[in-house]
């Protein structure tokens, strides 16, 4: 195997994309999951279904709508183009946007079940002792939900690394910007450069396996802490 031929850029790019996406998703996913866990609103099922959609939709459906949405005439791409001079399609920012949608359920669902199993009592107790809602959340709920957070982070990261169909449709295969590992593998296989395809594929295989081992051991070692 010829290592000098290996281009490390797609790996680095994928790691960046997954990292940024996970940070955004934890920020967005926490309030969504909290609301889902505690609301009695009837619209709950609708929001739950919306969050889970990327699990069942073919990536091509997401890719198609994103291509229209992020392009220079799209609802999102248009205003961004007016502000910055370039639309979101074929850009790293566009991929972050796409990945955030694509990996949303992988972050929201573990958080949702963590918050649900914690229940309302810890929050109410902390508040009755004089803590503000925000303070109570960060000093009481977050530590209790650490199992959910770890699972959400690991799954969100790994799922974004494995993204392919959406990126193929809105990425434009630009080295250093949108050419992520999965696209690089596809390209190498297409031109019959199997040595490089093997290295990258085996890397992803091992990484994904370790990720799942990690998720399952998190779930074993950190037992439920319900008051």
């Amino acid at each position, binding site marked *: 195997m010829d290592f000098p031929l290996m281009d490390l850029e797609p790996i680095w790019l994928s790691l960046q994309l997954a990292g940024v996406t996970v940070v955004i998703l934890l920020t967005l996913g926490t309030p969504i999951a909290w609301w889902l866990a505690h609301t009695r609103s009837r619209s709950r099922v609708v929001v739950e279904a919306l969050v889970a959609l990327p699990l069942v939709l073919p990536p091509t459906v997401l890719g198609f709508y994103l291509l229209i949405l992020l392009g220079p005439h799209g609802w999102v791409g248009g205003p961004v183009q007016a502000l910055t001079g370039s639309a979101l*399609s*074929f850009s790293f920012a566009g991929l972050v946007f796409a990945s955030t949608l694509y990996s949303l359920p992988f972050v929201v669902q573990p958080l949702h079940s963590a918050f649900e199993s914690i229940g309302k009592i810890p929050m109410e107790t902390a508040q009755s002792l004089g803590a503000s809602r925000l303070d109570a959340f960060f000093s009481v709920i977050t530590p209790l939900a650490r199992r959910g957070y770890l699972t959400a982070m690991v799954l969100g990261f790994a799922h974004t690394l494995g993204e392919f169909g959406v990126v193929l449709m809105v990425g434009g295969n630009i080295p250093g910007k949108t050419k992520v590992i999965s696209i690089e593998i596809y390209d190498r296989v297409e031109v019959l450069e199997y040595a490089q395809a093997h290295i990258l594929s085996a890397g992803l295989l091992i990484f994904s396996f370790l990720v799942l081992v990690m998720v399952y051991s998190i779930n074993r070692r950190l037992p439920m802490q319900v008051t």
Partner: protein
Amino acid sequence: MWVVVWILALPQVVWSGEVHVAVASNFLNPLKEIAASYKQDTGDRLILISGSTGKLYAQARHGAPFDVLLAADSKRPALLEREGVGVMGTRFTYAVGALVLWSLEPGRVRGEESLAQMNKGKLAIANPKTAPYGRAAQQVLVSLGFWKKLQPSLVRGENIAQTLQFVATGNATLGFVAKSQVEDPRFKFKGSRWEVPVDMHEPIFQQAILLNPGLANSSAKQFLDYLQGPVAKKIMRSYGFRFLEE
């Protein structure tokens, strides 16, 4: 349950009047028209599988059940012939393609100077490694001295159809596509274009070859003859293709 197993175990019915044609994306629409008239004239049906020439080549090498390959270059059919996947002596140039710089905006493309004026927006080309029209686009950009300079603006389509789609949706301002694609009635009178002079890139000889799975299919050979006949040539000409003898 045994019924299901029994049905699955039945040998695949060989429908002699069907030809599986792997076709380079730029030729898909003309071939659909040819397939319609072919069906009228012979009663045989063409089943079309489209993609970049490089991808179809790789699939054929790995035993894809294609009877015929209609590539967008002469390199891959020659390789298949040498590798024993294509049938020796069945390779021929069915059309000569042309490259076009195209934009959805009227008046945007005038000539090569339109490339020099690229300061924002994207320029779409097909992946030069797998798509012959992408390779030709790369050769044009290199010979005009724009290849390095325009790297930040380049987006690569997975095949020439996706490249056209990037430009047609406005996601890319300009794109190098096949002339046959913008001769399509949907795009013919839209946007603006520059027909790249043929001496700026290696000629695009689109070659066909009979593949091993098609050896036993008499319809496959009949279709290759039809492709060289007057009806097919008239359709190809309407898409802007030329022929070797011209």
